[in-house]
Every structure is written in structure tokens, then in C-alpha cells.
């Protein structure tokens, strides 16, 4: 049965994010994902609060990266969280965002290798043993905890490119794909399948998770309006190969890129076309969202993540999802 996750960017005060996390748990969501960017609230502080104020929802960073947080510290944070909420913690790990990393003066070196090595160190640390590891990006020299971690933690790999997707299928317990359209999921699942088969696993052994830009409201227009700013940023950040996959005119996206760079948000948001909304969001009335989620399920996902903006009014949209969308899939 499909799982429903929800993603929050902790840019607001912690009590707002945790209010929504409690609401999400009450309303039947299975997973809670908190993003990790240096310019927002700290992901582990937020997750610790979530651990205290929830009882059953599964949660984790979605995703952290090995450049800003050393793999050993990620292991320590996750092991500590797993003491607060045993069995409810997962790790989401990816290579990070080039632009954000650049702002901190960190160079994204060998992203694929860095992620693979991080997962290796992480898993060995979780076994509670002394870890000696000499990688190309990271190393550990007799590194161990002074406490006993409470067992293995599922690792979800945030992946976009074909090699990372394949690797995620091979070594991950789950894969996090930033995709809202079946074409993108279809492409990703094809790559994941290669990795899965190389590892002698089945696709169903891996939780294929679609991180979507989501907006729901009973009124289509209101749902769409809420999605526009997020779609503008996604379109602007998408490589041309993805724009072409969706038949989106690159020149139109260049216009958005230019406007965003100039800080002209009115121009940027005004240039978002219906094709872009369709390609980069799951958006509309509950019935329309159900149709789109069904298409993503057919393309091979096993977890659907409701991501930013969620809707024009986050609290009411969570209720609407719980009343109309989740029951459709969890009868």
C-alpha cells in the first residue's frame, strides 16, 4: 500500500513546523521529512522536537548532505534521534545543492563517491563497532560511539542524475526523487531498476519516494495560484534536458531565470505557464490530485510525499488531504 509522506522546510519558527507535524500524524501521514539547509532552522533540532511531540510517524532529514555535516556527525545525530523515538527514524542523504554549498565556501567534490562513502561509514557506525575506513572523500580512523546505537536505520538516497539513481537503487533502502510528473518518475525508476537488479534485489525492496511540489484546494484556481512560486523556482533550476522532456520552451524558462536573478518575482511568477505547472507539481482539486497520484503510482512509486507549498492554507490542506485523498488510497 502506498505510504504518504509530508515535507517541511523549517524556515518558520519551530512551533509552526511541529504544529503541522503533529497534525500530519493525526491525519494519517506515514512519514515526515524535514529539509536540511544551513539557512533554515537546524534539521536535527526540528526532528528532536518532532520525536517528542509525535508517537508513530516515521521521520528523518530529507535530505542532509555529507559536505556540510560530516558522515560521523550524521551518524551521531541519527543514533541519538533513534533513542528519542526508537524505530521511527530514517536517514535521507544526498549530494546537496551546489548553489547552497557554494554560499558556504564548500566545493561539491565527487558527489557520487561522497554519498556512497557516507552511507558506508554511517551503516558501520550504526553497528556500534569501531570504524576504520579510507575513502576518496571521507575517512574514519578507529571511529566509534561511546554508546550503543539502537540498531540499523533505513537509508534513503536523494537522487536526480542517472548514476546517482542507479546507485541509490543498488545501496539504498529507499530513493528520494524530486519529481511530480510520471515522465520523470518513469525515467528515474528505469535507472533505479538497473541498480536494484545489480544488487540482486527487487524493486519492491526499495521504497521509491516521490518528493512532489503539491498544492490542493477545493478551488482549482486557488490551488494553482499557490503552486506558482514554487514551480517558478523548480523550472528555473531544472536542466534543459528535463524541460525538453516536458516540451517546455527553454526560452520561457530563461525569462523566469532572468527575472528571479533580478529579484523581479512578479515577472518570474507571471511567466509560469500551465505546462510548467503540469510538469512540476501535483496540483488542483482533491479529485485531480488523486488522478495525478495514481499516475505516479503506476510509474512505480511506493511513497508519495506532499511537499511545498502543500496548499494555500497549509493547515486546511493537510485536513483536506486527510479527508479526501489518503482514504482513496488506503481503503
Amino acid at each position: 500500500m502506498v505510504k504518504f509522506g509530508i515535507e517541511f522546510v523549517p524556515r518558520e519558527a519551530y512551533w509552526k513546523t511541529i504544529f503541522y507535524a503533529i497534525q500530519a500524524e493525526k491525519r494519517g501521514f506515514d512519514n515526515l521529512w524535514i529539509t536540511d539547509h544551513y539557512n533554515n532552522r537546524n534539521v536535527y533540532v526540528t526532528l528532536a522536537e518532532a520525536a517528542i511531540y509525535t508517537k508513530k510517524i516515521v521521520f528523518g532529514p530529507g535530505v542532509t548532505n555529507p559536505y556540510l555535516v560530516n558522515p560521523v556527525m550524521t551518524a551521531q545525530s541519527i543514533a541519538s534521534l533513534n533513542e528519542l523515538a526508537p524505530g521511527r527514524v530514517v536517514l535521507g542523504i544526498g549530494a546537496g545543492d551546489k548553489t547552497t554549498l557554494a554560499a558556504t565556501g564548500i566545493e561539491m567534490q565527487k558527489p557520487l563517491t561522497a554519498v556512497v562513502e557516507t552511507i558506508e561509514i554511517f551503516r558501520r557506525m550504526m553497528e556500534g563497532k569501531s570504524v576504520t575506513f579510507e575513502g576518496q572523500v571521507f575517512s574514519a580512523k578507529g571511529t566509534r560511539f561511546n554508546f550503543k546505537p539502537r540498531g540499523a536505520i533505513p537509508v534513503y538516497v536523494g537522487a536526480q542524475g542517472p548514476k546517482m539513481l542507479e546507485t541509490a537503487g543498488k545501496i539504498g533502502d529507499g530513493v528520494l526523487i524530486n519529481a511530480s510528473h510520471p515522465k520523470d518518475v518513469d525515467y528515474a525508476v528505469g535507472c533505479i531498476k538497473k541498480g536494484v537488479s545489480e544488487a540482486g534485489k527487487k524493486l519492491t525492496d526499495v521504497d521509491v519516494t516521490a518528493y512532489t511540489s503539491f498544492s490542493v484546494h477545493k478551488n482549482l484556481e486557488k490551488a494553482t495560484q499557490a503552486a506558482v512560486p514554487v514551480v517558478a523556482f523548480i523550472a528555473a533550476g531544472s536542466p534543459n534536458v528535463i524541460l525538453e522532456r516536458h516540451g517546455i520552451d527553454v526560452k520561457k524558462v530563461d525569462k523566469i531565470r532572468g527575472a528571479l536573478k533580478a529579484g523581479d518575482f512578479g515577472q518570474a511568477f507571471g511567466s509560469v505557464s500551465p505546462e510548467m505547472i503540469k510538469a512540476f507539481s501535483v496540483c488542483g482539486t482533491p479529485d485531480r490530485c488523486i488522478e495525478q497520484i495514481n499516475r505516479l503510482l503506476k510509474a512505480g512509486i511506493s511513497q508519495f510525499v506532499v511537499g511545498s507549498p502543500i496548499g494555500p492554507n497549509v493547515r486546511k490542506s493537510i485536513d483536506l488531504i486527510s479527508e479526501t485523498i489518503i482514504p482513496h488510497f488506503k481503503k
Partner: protein
Amino acid sequence: MAYQKIVKTIPVEKREDLLDKLLNLILKAKKENKMPSDLANTMLSQWQLGPLTTEAGLATILEAAVLLESEKTIEFLEQELQLADVAKAIKRMI
């Protein structure tokens, strides 16, 4: 306690509407640093344990709304819910 006393004077049939509006106000409030952490933790504990429509829950939300958006809260109480006495009691407190 003061807010619990105020909540007791609010007719039961108006409480759900009031809670809905106040939650919108506090969750969209820009000056979120005005929220004291002990009040925030109380709110989260109450929310975790049950609905916020209880007198204790509503009192917490009302207190938070007054701290974060006092003018809008009073305006809503006076104009939309016709609770002039409640609005007056809050004005005396702030």
C-alpha cells in the same frame, strides 16, 4: 488562568469557529518571535494530546493570538463573532 476564565464566557457554539480563525492568525503571524517558548510548548503538548477545542486548548490559542496578532484578534472577536465583552476583557489585560 486569566485566558481560561475568558474562554468560559465564550458560547460553546462559537468556539470551533473561533479556534479555526485564531489558528489561521497564529500560524500565519509574521512576528513569530513574540511567541514565548513555554506557551509554544504548552500549545504543542495540548495539540499532541487531543483537540484544541477544550477550554484549556482554546485558552492557550487565544493567549498566543493576542500576543502575536492582538489587533486582528480583537477585531475578529468584536466584528465577526459579536463577542464585545470578550474583546473588552482582553483589551483590559493587554
